[in-house]
């Protein structure tokens, strides 16, 4: 597997990735979190990474973002090895990770400010992105003055603002109620589908329905040590609407994914 010619059309390529953590009980033991982890994403593809809790989804995502090192295999973005943080990979963390001392607007401006975008331009751009996520009215509020769903939208706006080519999401909607969650899934799709150039998206989730609704493809992981066990193409037409959720195609894929997951662990088959 290692000697094969790397597929040049892939935006992201992960080959035989291994990640080992030393055991907490300092007796020289190890804990293999990822082993033989393979995953490719084509440019502009929306892929969900689905798997039982603790299988290493966040670990891979952090490796891809350059926040974690890896202990074997290759992780390439645009054919180049990931070494350190790559600012072309925008990350939306599970816990929002907004700067609590900055207003929504200033949070969204952060990535632009770091890139040296002049003040007036970044204000305009941030206001535009906040409008896209429906938060113009909350621009001058601090994160703790926003609801959970609003904070998550600010976090999404913050990565959208500086236009990284790759977006990775780590269970961004996990902490939200079902209605807000479905609403934001719709918003995210609308923004992604209407983008000038389709961004490549890796979306980590626990929820089968969320994965189907959003993705072109679902990669299902095994329980520890984690690797990608199976891929399911989601051939539902785009743009997707809330009707897509009740289509027969949706139900068929859900049953298929649930079967694969159940073989792995019994984590149920709906939103959790």
């Amino acid at each position, binding site marked *: 597997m290692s000697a094969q010619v790397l597929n040049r059309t892939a935006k992201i390529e992960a080959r035989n990735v291994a990640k080992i953590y030393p055991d907490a009980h300092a007796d020289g033991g190890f804990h293999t979190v990822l082993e033989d982890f393979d995953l490719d994403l084509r440019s502009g593809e929306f892929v969900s990474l689905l798997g039982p809790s603790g299988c290493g989804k966040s670990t891979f995502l952090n490796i891809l*973002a*350059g*926040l974690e090192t890896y202990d074997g295999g290759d992780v390439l973005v645009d054919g180049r090895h990931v070494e350190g*943080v790559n*600012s072309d*990979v*925008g*990350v939306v*963390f599970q*816990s929002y*990770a*907004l*700067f*609590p*001392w*900055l207003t929504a607007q200033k949070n969204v401006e*952060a*990535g632009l400010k*770091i*890139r040296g975008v002049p003040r007036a331009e970044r204000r305009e751009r941030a206001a535009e992105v906040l409008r896209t996520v429906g938060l113009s009215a909350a621009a001058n509020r*601090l994160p*703790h*003055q926003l609801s959970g769903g609003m904070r998550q939208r600010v976090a999404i706006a*913050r*990565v959208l603002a*500086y236009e990284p080519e790759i977006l990775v999401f780590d269970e961004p909607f996990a902490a939200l109620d079902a209605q807000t969650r479905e609403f934001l899934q719709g918003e995210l799709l609308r923004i992604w589908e209407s983008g000038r150039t389709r961004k490549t998206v890796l979306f980590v989730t626990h929820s089968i329905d969320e994965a189907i609704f959003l993705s072109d493809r679902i990669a299902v992981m095994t329980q520890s040590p984690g690797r990608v066990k199976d891929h399911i193409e989601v051939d539902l037409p785009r743009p997707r609407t809330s009707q897509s959720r009740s289509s027969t195609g949706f139900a068929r894929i859900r049953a298929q994914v649930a079967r694969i997951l159940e073989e792995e662990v019994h984590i149920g088959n709906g939103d959790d």
Partner: protein
Amino acid sequence: MATATTEAVPAEVAIRRPKRPNAFLVKYDRYLYGAAGLLGFLALWWLVINRGLIDSLYLATPQDTVKAFLSGLADGSIPADAGPSIQRAVIGFSLALVAGIVLGILVGSIPAFGKFAEPVLLFFRNLSLLALLPVFVAFLGIDEESKIAIVVWACFWPIFINAVGAVGGVERILINSARTLGAGRLYIFTQVVLPAALPSFFPGIRLAAANAFTALVAAELVGGAQGLGIYINNASYRMQTPQIYAGILTLGLLGVLVNALMAGAERYLTRWQRGLTTR
């Protein structure tokens, strides 16, 4: 039935307005209690001398103290000595503030630094200032340098020790999210670690501000031309009891002023936290 009972009761009796609290008392409550406490203190002070419990050779009356203070202000003798003291305190405190925070962030965020520095820091952090006075004097003489150095020393440790701990408390995810946004070291230091840790810097900064004058007066008592410590010392040589207490009063007032400034700075710099914490 219910209607019958309501009708039986006259309207004016049925609605009893709550007594409105006295607006003046609500607003000035704190000051009134404070003023009463202060008056009580002054009365007690006056009484112990008036009754002859303490000789006015050792303790001046409040009137004499205030009189000495006002005439000291009027003839310029107190400002002449307070000026240099304030200047030394401000310079020393500012140097310590910058050094303490910069080094605190470095040691706090680079684990190797912390490991190297720990034993040395453990030794110095609680070392008595008074024991070090002769060392400072030996190296720097009794002029400005040694006095400012002592203030720096006294202010540096609380700020630094506190900053190291505060930096350790900054959430990893905030730093990671800044890194993925493309931030470099300098941006992370100044725009993430500093604001995130700032609220936790303040206990150390306030302690340092309080230390500044204490250390300074100790240094001035060693000698020198001008300063509040010297003012008090000279008054004591001349047995001018009211002047001694006027000097102490000046120091006390400066302390109140410093405290107010620190509280104001803290409120301003951590204003984003309002509503987030119980403060």
